[in-house]
């Protein structure tokens, strides 16, 4: 472990993993509560177009990815609100448009598929100090908003009609959840990768649900599971020489399996 921490890139990667592990389930809990578990996937594909736009225009891909992902988040919510389009159809359009735009713009930029690969599945050795600063700032914004606005976000995601009658600006908060999800995707882009970022928003929540009985406990335990999976995955990917994204997700799924097993054993003992 001390050898691992002697490398600058690993210290940076672990710091990014901690923020990613906290931020993704922090906003992911609301997304799961709204039954929009695939929202992160759709926005991840849109962010790919943002990355490719950065490659084409020689602007830092993190900046273009966050801008394009936020635009995608706003578009999907507006489609759901005004275009009489169901959530899954709007998400499907994001999937197709995002991946097509990403590959098209990457081709136009003269870049290879290998370049996109580090954004799709994460690449810890490529995280620079400036990337880390962006990840820290954006990650803290997501965590503070997700925890600080918890009463409002809970009310809106639990029962939109009741929240609206109570005077809560429902459209503003549903839009905020989507925008925070878009920011989280950019935060997680270099560690987990765009294709698997949604897993870190959903799997820790599913694992926490095996062990908890309240929304608040689920929220907090999912953040702990997220940090363990993200940091453990980064370390494991270094040790066994694998890409970080798949390693983190497999570890998160392993934690889910353990939690489900623990729940099953507890239920059997209770009989």
């Amino acid at each position, binding site marked *: 472990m001390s050898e691992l921490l002697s490398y600058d890139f690993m210290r940076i990667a672990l710091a990014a993993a901690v923020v990613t592990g906290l931020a993704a389930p922090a906003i992911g809990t609301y997304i799961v509560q709204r039954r929009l578990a695939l929202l992160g996937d759709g926005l991840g594909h849109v962010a790919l177009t943002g990355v490719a736009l950065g490659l084409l225009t020689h602007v830092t891909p993190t900046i273009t990815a966050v801008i394009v992902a936020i635009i995608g988040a706003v578009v999907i919510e507006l489609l759901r609100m005004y275009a009489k389009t169901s959530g899954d159809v709007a998400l499907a359009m994001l999937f197709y448009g995002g991946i097509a735009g990403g590959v098209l713009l990457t081709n136009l930029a003269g870049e290879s598929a290998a370049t996109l690969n580090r954004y799709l599945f994460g690449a810890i050795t490529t995280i620079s100090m400036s990337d880390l600063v962006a990840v820290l700032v954006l990650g803290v914004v997501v965590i503070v908003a997700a925890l600080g*606005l918890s009463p*409002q976000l809970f009310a809106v995601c639990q029962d939109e009609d009741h929240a609206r*009658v*109570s005077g809560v600006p429902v459209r503003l908060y549903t839009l905020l959840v989507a925008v925070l999800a878009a920011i989280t995707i950019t935060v997680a882009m270099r560690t987990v990768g765009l294709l698997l970022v949604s897993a870190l928003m959903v799997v820790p929540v599913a694992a926490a*649900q095996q062990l908890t009985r309240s929304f608040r406990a689920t929220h907090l335990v999912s953040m702990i599971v997220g940090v363990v999976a993200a940091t453990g995955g980064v370390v494991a990917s270094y040790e066994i020489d694998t890409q970080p994204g798949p390693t983190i997700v497999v570890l998160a799924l392993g934690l889910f399996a353990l939690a489900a097993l623990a729940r099953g054993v507890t239920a059997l003992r209770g009989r």
Partner: protein
Amino acid sequence: MTPPLLARGVEVDLAGGPVVKGIDLTVGTGEFVTLLGANGSGKSTLVRALVGLIPARGTIELFGTPLTRFRERWRLGYVPQRPGSAAGVPATVREIVTSGRLSHRPVMGFASRSDRVAVTEAIEHVRLTAKADQPITELSGGQQQRAYIARALVANPQLLVMDEPTAGVDAESAEVLAGLIGHLVSDHGMAVLLVAHELGPMRPLVDRAVVVDAGRVAYEGRVEDIPSDHPHDHPHSGAPERIRPVQEEGPLG
């Protein structure tokens, strides 16, 4: 005295067609009014328009303020027809009831002591204290409905609008609700607008019944005087027979 709810000439279109066709309705302070009608008669659509969930034409005032400018949201309690118990992350009864205090709280900040006391009392009122920290998904349908009514009552509203709160609810829960609502109306002057198929134990509490048929008021008056062929006596019999309006001319309400 300004009535908690005043509606005049309310019209609602859904899917390109008129569903509510010029309804007048008033609910006075301490008055218990029930909206009755067959499935598809427009009563739930009317109620959703009255609380601002769907756009409507006509005049709707809450406590003398036009609905679009009404800001004192704590004065209005609402129990939707199918509350969000299907949320992906189950919440406890206490968490759900606490969300009903939002209209009393600042945007950022923790729940105050008065918030916590109000939540505990609301849960006590619906007799769910023993289940306060259980996930709502582990409760029976009737108990869940009691939790959602506690959420509507925790802000101490002066007008309570309920959309079929006792549909599919067990007899014990219906009795608990009737006792609680009766107490709030008689002792605290709360106004109630109840959409119902069957009144059950709520029946003695009702001051006035309004029967909606095909988007219009077909009858308004005492529950006891509703024609016997009204669908609330036959809740699943389909479209009601024609009901002779008590008032043939002029605005009802």
